[in-house]
């Protein structure tokens, strides 16, 4: 078996340009690796036939960019025309979309090749990869551990070097948390930077699409490719998309960096905290000015998320009623029974639990008690972040409170799995860009991730710091080697 997909992007690209390899070689290698890593359960649907066809078609075109011919994996809640999109749910088990998401169109315009649709937590609800209708996804660093979620398969595919690129979605941490657990680079950009058109909605005001990659360089390239205003998404921004790679490996001395006190408090696992402390010392030695700061209401991140995200979800998932698409119950007498049975059969437990909470917090007087209040607190948290960015270029902290844990640990405790997103949710609430970068391993050689948070539409500053740290730390992050 070939192993081109473990080479650096520039090396692969140069081989393509010199015609030493063809896009087809990369595609076939990706499918070989999927087969070899079948137990990881990273994919729900493979795009083998079309991918091979597309790769062959690319042989007739001049290599015209760094992303040309590169295999990419797409999270299965991003719609792909004529390629099954299930959201890892029984509800959409047989759903073939009739249109492409905007990001998919952009990927195709860059001549990247979609290898398949990645496994995930059902409707992006979960942070362990265990709520999928298509079975658990495993962490390639340790098959007994969770990969994190909900973009589990995307992080796993990149970590196991099945594809160099993947797209994920992030509503409360679903790109950053699995990226951190799997030792890859995951970016949740500014809200509005990347079009959401074609992302199956979970919580519209918190949903983001973003790149998951092996390196910061690849991440910057893919983000540039998928960003920009989209007339199909009125919440997308018309701000010019920078050429992010121009900002990599620049001088970081003099950067003003804040560390929220809450992100270094005792809610964080000690090993993770110590790793963060090492990084802070390293950055100071490189000339960064680091200060500890307070951001208001960070400790309310989880209840905020439960109210706002689940309220929006209860509305967004109302369309799965068996009338137009998706699962339909086989026998019923009345309309009410039709709805009840269709939705009871189609949704998994975690989804049902969240829809019930979401409906509850919007019902009658609860809307005032919970929803309106949550919006107010969200507003204050945002103000506090904005104040911080008047003083600092970046904020940093760990991505998660801990490293990947054993499968099955949190299944029985509905609340516990929300706590994985404690440090990531605030950035969805604020819409600020945040990237998870691998910064080392714990005693068990499980990856630890660090979160770098930027001001609105300042992804390039995040990439500058991330690229310098990545280069300085020089970690070996190919997960397959350990198994």
């Amino acid at each position, binding site marked *: 078996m070939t192993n081109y997909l473990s080479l650096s992007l520039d090396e692969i690209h140069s081989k393509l340009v010199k015609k030493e390899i063809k896009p087809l070689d990369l595609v076939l290698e990706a499918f070989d690796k999927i087969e070899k890593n079948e137990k990881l359960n990273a994919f729900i649907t493979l795009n083998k036939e079309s991918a091979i066809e597309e790769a062959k078609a690319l042989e007739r075109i001049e290599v015209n960019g760094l992303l040309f011919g590169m295999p990419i994996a797409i999270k299965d809640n991003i*719609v792909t025309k004529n390629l099954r999109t299930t959201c890892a749910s029984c509800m959409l088990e047989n759903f073939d979309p009739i249109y492409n998401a905007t990001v998919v169109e952009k990927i195709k315009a860059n001549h990247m090749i979609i290898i398949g649709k990645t496994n995930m937590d059902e409707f992006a609800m979960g942070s362990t990869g265990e709520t999928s209708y298509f079975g658990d996804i495993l962490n390639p660093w340790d098959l007994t551990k969770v990969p994190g979620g909900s973009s589990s398969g995307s992080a796993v595919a990149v970590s196991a070097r099945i594809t160099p690129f993947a797209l994920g979605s992030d509503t409360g941490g679903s790109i950053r948390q699995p990226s951190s657990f799997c030792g890859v680079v995951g970016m949740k950009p500014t809200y509005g930077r990347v079009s959401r*058109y074609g992302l*199956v909605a979970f919580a519209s005001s918190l949903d983001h699409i973003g790149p998951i990659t092996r390196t910061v360089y690849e991440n910057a390239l893919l983000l540039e490719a998928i960003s920009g205003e989209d007339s199909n998404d009125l919440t997308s921004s018309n701000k010019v998309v920078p050429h992010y790679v121009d900002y990599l490996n620049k001088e970081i001395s003099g950067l003003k960096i804040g560390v929220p006190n809450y992100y270094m408090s005792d809610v964080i696992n000690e090993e993770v905290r110590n790793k963060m402390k090492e990084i802070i010392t390293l950055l100071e030695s490189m000339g960064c000015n680091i200060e500890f700061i307070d951001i208001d209401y960070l400790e309310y991140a989880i209840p905020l998320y439960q109210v706002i995200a689940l309220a929006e979800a209860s509305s967004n998932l109302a369309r799965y009623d068996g009338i137009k*698409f998706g699962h339909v119950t086989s026998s019923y007498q009345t309309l009410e029974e039709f709805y009840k049975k269709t939705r009871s059969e189609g949704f998994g437990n975690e989804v049902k639990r969240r829809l019930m909470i979401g409906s509850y917090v919007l019902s009658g007087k609860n809307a005032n008690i919970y929803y309106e209040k949550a919006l107010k607190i969200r507003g204050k948290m945002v103000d506090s972040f904005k104040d911080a960015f008047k003083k600092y270029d970046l904020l940093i902290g760990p991505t998660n409170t801990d490293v990947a844990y054993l499968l099955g640990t949190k299944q029985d405790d509905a609340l516990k799995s929300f706590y994985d997103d404690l440090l990531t949710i605030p950035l969805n609430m604020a819409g600020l860009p945040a990237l998870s970068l691998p910064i080392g391993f714990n005693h068990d050689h499980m990856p630890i991730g660090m979160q770098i948070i930027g001001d609105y539409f300042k992804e390039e500053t995040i990439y500058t710091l991330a690229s310098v740290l990545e280069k300085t730390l020089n970690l070996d992050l190919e997960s397959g080697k350990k198994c």
Partner: protein
Amino acid sequence: MLIPTIGIEIHVELKSKGKVFSKGKNEFSTYPNTNVTVLDLGYPGILPQLNKEVINMGIAASLAFHAEIAKEMHFDRKNYFYPDLPKGYQITQQKTPIGSNGYIEIERNGVKKKIRIERLHIEEDTCKSIHTEHATLLNFNRAGVPLIEIVSKPDIESAEEAVLYVEKLRETLLYLGISDVKIEEGSMRCDVNVSVHEDGTPFGTKVEIKNIGSISNVGVAINYEIKRQTEMLKNNVKIVEETRRFDDKTMTTIAMRTKETGNDYRYFPEPDLPYIHVNEAWIKKIEEKMPIMPEVLREIYQKLGINEKNINAILSNKKMCDFYEEMRKNMNPIILSNLLTGDIISFMNKNSLEFEDIKLEKNNLGGLVEALERNDISSKQGKEILPILITEGGDYNTLINKLGMKQISDADSLLELVSKVIDENPESVIDFKAGKDRATKYLMGQIMKASRGQANPALVNKLLIEVLENL
């Protein structure tokens, strides 16, 4: 004596080119499920668009109903399950209606009354569902068609006022050109809330009536409901809050469902659409393009001295009114109104012509009106000329010459004619001297005849009297 309290909620379909939140065509009448986009189906991954034309129409309607326009507005989601609702929620404006605190002024027996409008808001229509014996059929052509809902305050006190209110509202929207407002075809839907109470006591329990298929039936339904509720109270039967349906076969209302306490629509702001900021400049731009409203036109026409009958006839037909407005500033508006509501419209009706079809224009019609005003031609001649102008058009003077209808207004030639006729009729001169009026009339007739109708009758009359008196 029980006092009725009536409030009306009206849904109006807007005739924008596209749907409100998708790029689908706003054409319901085409083959079912052909004007449908992934958005109208509530497909996974879709996000709403916003059709600015609809916002403009909402601003125009708010202005026409004297409502305050929301400077910052957003949309909300109204959540409920029903097969005709593709997304499981309807995008509407719960918190920030585009218009609020407006009114419609009605006039009854010369007395004017303002019916207050609580709110106007924009929302999307649902699918059209057709229930057959074995299935319910859904037509998504209607899903996403823009609606404006106009909610009155309970200021209406009788069926007659209600009908006047609906008629006025319909007329206004028709003049704005933003809706077909055809209640019979469903582009206007009226839901009426009726309650009755003793003077000096709180309002009674309200009952909602739906499914009213014509404006006159709005009145019928209300009168029936007032009578029904009054009798119930007389017999000490408690009125329950419920929704009833008007049945146009029996002309009665029939109970549909009792109102469940607190319908829970779980409203919350639509996160997929940004807030809309409406500034004065935007409003002004709409205002400048707005047609003059019928109530304003009525006042103008009254001042011009047009009779009520003509005013009503002109205002009841938007196309006629547009035509009148285009013409009236260039000619005598009274004569024009007589011609338009009389000979012109009847000729058009007889020949099934539309205003677009007729060849009348400012110049030729103006020439005719001016000639009639100066008595250059008789009204009888006018009737002969009109059909030619309507069907063939052309220049008025050329036509008059061609028809030999040109008037002789030259005093010298007329005097010659007058003297000749007097010479030929000595008995009439004797009759005139004896004070007999018919003598002048006879002589006038003879002169006109001799001129083949071309003599200016006014001038002839003046010359004739002068000559006779000097004899």
